[in-house]
Every structure is written in structure tokens, then in C-alpha cells.
């Protein structure tokens, strides 16, 4: 990672104004803490940047836009396929119900997701102007693949296998308001209606 300006130049500049006679005459001490020379600590991912979008102020007649909170945790030592089952479980639930289900789940990822949800709830109340911490529901919950590391697994008779340590990311989007009602399952009658409608939508080309 390259710093924004050269270290030698900075050091020269620092020594430049740190001359003792200059300090005595001016009587001011320049604090060093306001200069930061390091590059940004971590590269922000797309999900973290979603919290930064600012909408224009709403017009008086518009319905209130519900608050959206994006949170994630990176490089969790767990498999993304196994984590997906937990993410699928809590999709569309209210945050209290999700926390209850995760508390009594026996999976390793449940503890991690619970921490992430609690952090996100805390963030929502402090920074995102959410009034009631229970008035949140989970709009999206996704898993992603993290970095994998290969390791040797020793077998008998001098044989070995190469095992993969898998890691995953977990992303969650909380939205203010009660959870939306679940969609009713599609009946055969609905499917038949759709099929007939598709047949009716066909047009005959090159006709009168």
C-alpha cells in the first residue's frame, strides 16, 4: 500500500518547522495527531458503502420512506453453504423472532448471526434514526464466499490429503416496520389461469 505522499518528504517537512528558534519565537506547538499518513485501514466493500447513500429530502405528500440498515461481517470461519440455511431461516422475519430462533439453534453460525443482528439493531437506534428497536424486520440476508486456505491432513501410511478451510461473509439488511405478510403458496388454479393468459397473449405475426 503506497502512502499518499512520500515518507522522506513528510519527514523533511516535519523537521522543517520543528526548528527550536522558530518554536521559541512563535510559542505555538503544532500537534502531530492531526496529520495521518497511513492509507485507509481496510478497503470498504460494497455492502458497507450502502449505508452511506443519502436520499434527497422527502416532499410533504410522499409516504414516509422506511429506514434501511446494511450490516455485514467478513471472514467468518464457517462454510457458506451451511450458513445459507440460517440466512434462509431468518429471511422475512421480525428481528425479535429471528433472535429467538437463532438463540435456540444448535449451529455454530447461529451465534455469529445473532451478534451481527444485535450490532445492526444497535447501529439502527443510534445512527439511523430508528425509534423502536423492535420495529425492524429482516429484508435481505445473504452469505458470500470468503478466502479459502489449504492445509495438509495427515493420513496413515504416509498418505496425506489437502483440506480446505472455508470462510464466509454474512450480509443483512434491516428495514424499519413490521415484517411483510408471507406470500400465499401458488395454487394449481392460479397456475392454470397464468397458462391460459400466456396463450391469449400470443400474437400472430404477419397477419391482417
Amino acid at each position, binding site marked *: 500500500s503506497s502512502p499518499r505522499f512520500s515518507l522522506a518528504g513528510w519527514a523533511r517537512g516535519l523537521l522543517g518547522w520543528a526548528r527550536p528558534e522558530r518554536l521559541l519565537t512563535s510559542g505555538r506547538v503544532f500537534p502531530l495527531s492531526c496529520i495521518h499518513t497511513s492509507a485507509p485501514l481496510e478497503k470498504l466493500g460494497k455492502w458497507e458503502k450502502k449505508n452511506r447513500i443519502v436520499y434527497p429530502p422527502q416532499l410533504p405528500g410522499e409516504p414516509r420512506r422506511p429506514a434501511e440498515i446494511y450490516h455485514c461481517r467478513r471472514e467468518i470461519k464457517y462454510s457458506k453453504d451451511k450458513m445459507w*440455511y440460517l440466512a*434462509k*431461516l431468518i429471511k422475512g422475519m421480525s428481528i425479535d423472532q429471528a433472535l429467538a*430462533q437463532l*438463540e*435456540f439453534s444448535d449451529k455454530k453460525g447461529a451465534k455469529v448471526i445473532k451478534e451481527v443482528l444485535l450490532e445492526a439493531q444497535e447501529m439502527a437506534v443510534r445512527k439511523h434514526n430508528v425509534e423502536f428497536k423492535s420495529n425492524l424486520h429482516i429484508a435481505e440476508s445473504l452469505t458470500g464466499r470468503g478466502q479459502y486456505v489449504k492445509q495438509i491432513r495427515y493420513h496413515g501410511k504416509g498418505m496425506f490429503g489437502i483440506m480446505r478451510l472455508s470462510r464466509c461473509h454474512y450480509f443483512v439488511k434491516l428495514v424499519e416496520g413490521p415484517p411483510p405478510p408471507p406470500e400465499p403458496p401458488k395454487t394449481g388454479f392460479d397456475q392454470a389461469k397464468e397458462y391460459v393468459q400466456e396463450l391469449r397473449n400470443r400474437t400472430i405475426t404477419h397477419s391482417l
Partner: protein
Amino acid sequence: ALLVFPSPLPPLRALLRRCWGRLERGLLPRWDLPWGPALAVQAPGALPEAAEGAGEGGGEPGAWEGVLWMAAPKKRRTIEVNRCRRRDPRKLIKVKRNIDVCPECGHLKLKHVLCGYCYAKVKAETRQIRHEIQKQEGGPFKAPTVETVVLYDGEQPSEKDEGKRIIERARKRPSWFAQN
């Protein structure tokens, strides 16, 4: 008797040499390495001899049953097929409907299981009582043969606790620990 050939023309001689070589190879079967493409079969290391295989007649049964048949996947399972199996409802985690609120502390608990918070609370207090007992006994195998009673701040032993061992705890009596 010896076969005597008259000296033929050079190309004919080369042809005869080749034919003789092929005959030799045909007469003496040798398992040389450079083979052409051959039938690959799922089977363990030692193959049955060709003569024995020819003599079987049935193929499968006999001394070599199960040698040439091993289950193996024929084709790669596509991601669509894999998803159908992994996302089938019986593989998804089921939503638990037996979660309640503990009336004592307000934390969540399963209906048929003790509340985790209350249990931890009782466990911590029991640990302290056991420390007091250890301090009083001073070593292993010194437990008296009488009952034990635990008294908290400002409590006096009643007439029922006559011959019992008394353990003092320097705190207020917890609400969940009823006194007899």
C-alpha cells in the same frame, strides 16, 4: 526341416521381416507397456486371467463376483440438480414454535427446558456455597454425617436446625432460595 527362402528383392525382404515379427508377437503373448486405447473397467488391481475368464461363461457369478461392478457416478451432477436437493424443504431448518418467555427473569426459554439465565444464576450461587463448605471442611473426605443448612445475613438458626451443620453466606437471601 529348415525353411530356406531364395534371396528376394529388398522391399519383399522387409515385408517378410515384418510378417515374421507379427507372427512372433502373436505366438508369444507379452504384456508390453505401449498399448493402444483399450477398454477401461472399474475393478480392483488384479485382473482375472484371460483363460479363466473365457472358461467362466457366465461372466458375473463364480469366484470373481463383484469384481467388475463398482458403483460410480456416470455424469456430473449439475448445479440445478444440486440446488433442488440442497434447498428441498426437508433439508431447510424448521422454525421452532416452542419458544416462551421465562416468567422469572424475562429471558427466552424453550418450553420443556429450564431457563438458561435462571440456571446460571443458581449455579453461581451454588458455587459460592460450595466454596464456603470447602473453607469450613478444610480438605477432602471431611464431610460430616449431618445435614447442612445455609443461612444468609441476619438469619438465626431455628429450633428445627438443631443438629445440622450451618454454612454462612455474607449476602442477602436471594428471592428464589426459600427458607424453611
